[in-house]
């Protein structure tokens, strides 16, 4: 049975709305109601995007002139792809984002499994675990920079206490790259843990009990029941975290400033420098579009994967 979308004429509202509906029709009036929201969405989201796309086709260095420079077509994009520093930046960003997200998922899932359930202690543990997430990222970077100071930082001093010669965390390019991954994971693992705890709580307990009755041990239950049911949430969390990791700027700025050299330049840091330090507005806009397209590709990939998992689960 189909549901009628419009009211019978006798039941239509009287007065102004009634006259309006009679004049515009149902679709027309729906569109009319959508207009304010559309204006906000277009103004707040599409206009800046379109504007940056246009700017990326011109040569505009704000330090030279307050007005936009000559049209250069795709030159800024060509420069982006032929710039060896940009290539290094993209490659570190990918390594950073994937490693950090993978670490967060592993640790977050582990913590979620350990802390799921009721009771005062578990609730307290979950609350305490949220703390890194609520500290301002700039403060996180500053605190970690002090902790990781190779010569006087508390971490290396603690390691020395147990006979380990701690690494040159922020002075060695490889360790600096790893340090940022570690800091990001420290900050955002709680988000993953809390989300997965909520997902675990909402799983149908009868299925898990049935598996147990059928003789499945904890590992088999996790592997064949819990994990598949969690996958749609895991994929969604992974997508959020991966995109967020691509956008990381604050901890890079405060901890390593992209160094040593170019070792920890992320895409966001690069774009920040081009746009707001050197005022190469057009080049920064082109780089931003490259990053946006990367993020959209990631999001589409993850959403397709999630659809695939969900439809597979429904079919079973």
């Amino acid at each position, binding site marked *: 049975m189909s549901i009628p979308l419009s009211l019978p004429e006798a039941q239509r509202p009287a007065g102004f709305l009634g006259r309006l509906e009679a004049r515009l029709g149902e679709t027309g009036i729906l569109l009319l109601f959508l207009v304010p929201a559309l204006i906000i969405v277009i103004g707040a989201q599409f206009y800046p995007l379109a504007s940056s796309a246009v700017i990326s086709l011109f040569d505009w260095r704000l*330090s030279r002139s307050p007005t936009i420079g000559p049209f250069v077509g795709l030159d800024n994009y060509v420069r982006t792809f032929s710039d060896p520093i940009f290539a290094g930046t993209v490659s570190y960003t990918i390594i950073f984002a994937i490693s950090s997200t993978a670490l967060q998922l592993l640790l977050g899932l582990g913590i979620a499994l350990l802390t799921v359930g009721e009771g005062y202690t578990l609730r307290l543990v979950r609350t305490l675990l949220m703390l890194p997430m609520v500290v301002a990222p700039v403060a996180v970077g500053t605190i970690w920079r002090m902790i990781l100071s190779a010569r006087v930082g508390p971490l*290396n001093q603690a390691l020395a206490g147990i006979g380990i010669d701690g690494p*040159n965390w922020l002075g060695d390019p490889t360790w600096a790259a790893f340090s940022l991954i570690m800091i990001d994971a420290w900050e955002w693992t709680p988000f993953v843990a809390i989300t997965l705890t909520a997902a675990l709580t909402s799983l149908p307990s009868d299925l898990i009990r049935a598996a147990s009755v059928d003789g499945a041990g904890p590992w088999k239950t996790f592997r064949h029941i819990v994990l598949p049911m969690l996958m749609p949430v895991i994929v969604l969390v992974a997508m959020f975290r991966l995109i967020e990791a691509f956008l990381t700027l604050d901890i890079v700025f405060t901890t390593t400033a992209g160094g040593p*050299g*170019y070792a920890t330049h992320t895409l966001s840091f690069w774009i920040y420098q081009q746009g707001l330090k050197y005022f190469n507005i057009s080049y920064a806009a082109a780089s931003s579009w490259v990053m946006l397209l990367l993020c959209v590709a990631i999001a589409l990939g993850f959403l397709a994967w999630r659809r695939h998992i969900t439809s597979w689960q429904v079919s079973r």
Partner: protein
Amino acid sequence: MDHRTKAASAAQTMAAATIATLLTGGISVAAELNFSVMESGTYDRAAGQIAAEFKAASGTDVKVSAFPWAVLRQNNTTDLISGTNRYDVMSGGYYLSDVYSYFSTLDDYIARDNYAEGMIPGLLSPGRSEFVSGKSIGIPYGVDAYGLIYNTEMLEKAGVSPEFATWADLAAACEKIVAANAGVACFSHATGNPEQIGGFFFSAYAGTYISKDGKYALDVPAATAAAEEISALWKYLPDKGTALTFDEAHQLFKDQKVAITVTYPSFITNSLDTEESQVKGKWGMSAFPGDGFAWLSLWQLFVPAATEDKDAAWAWIKAFAGPENAKRNLVEHNIGSVWAATYEDPELKAKNAHFWPALTAGFAAAKNPPLSGEAQDLLTNTLQDIVNGRTSAADGIASVASQWATIPVPAAMLEAAAGSGLQDK
């Protein structure tokens, strides 16, 4: 009362008297001025001190906004480009070259008050202080030049003379220093500040930075050799010494864990002769190595074109940067005076005899590279990659040379390069 307090007290009285004199000359002043300065515990403190006296004498309230160097640079630039016009007087240096066009020229004020008289010769000239189309836009108030500060005992023990013609000479001496002084590293430096490695390059590289046709360009073989020299020297840093802050690098020298520290002298010299200092009476300063130039640090005051009351801004500049407060700023805050008379003060001259000759010789020879912020960051980040083994000297310098070709040279930098002989002829 010790000498320092006496000097400070005399200077304070003079400062207040000078400010009062300046203001009775009929200069109209605004009720409020906003001033941006570096948060260093020196420049900002001096500014706060002088601002209080300035207010008492003139009624003008100078609001001092202090920021760490990188934030100050960003805030000043953004303030000008965005047209926010928050600051009436700004502190900065040659790295503001991208925004020179936003500043007022100050030639009329300089000429009217004969302001340059008594300044260290050459400081108020292109390539050292800042100019646009031949007109001065920056008034110097704090001078420093990279220096090499050494522990006399350690060098004597190693049989090393503290004069190094090149960084390779220093590297050779480092072998002896480390061998003769157990548990001591050769030198420390603020390696964690990525731009500071430029100090080594500018002194090691004797070539030019801008081509005849006005493009950024390097003499690639000479620049590669300089980068290799720095890379070889980096081996003599302390263990895990590649991300040191200025404070950490200085502390290593004060704790006698390194024999030499390469730094801006004004950051450290006043703490080396205190009663608590372990190196009191056993340190000196030598000429900066290399055939290039020691990196000049010349803090200047700029007046944005948008500043409404330029007379008030100029009155503040004279109060803060003028010769009257120079001695107090040096004694109390270790701000390098730009006035020649300060270095002729018999009391100060005697007290600082162990390093002033090298320091003042450094001022005379030091320069700024004619590089915009973007060009300089590209060079120094790449040098960091070279010394950390992420790329070879040859590849790194070739990459800088090719990318510099895409970075426009600000017009003011061409003037500066011509003035300091750093453009190809």
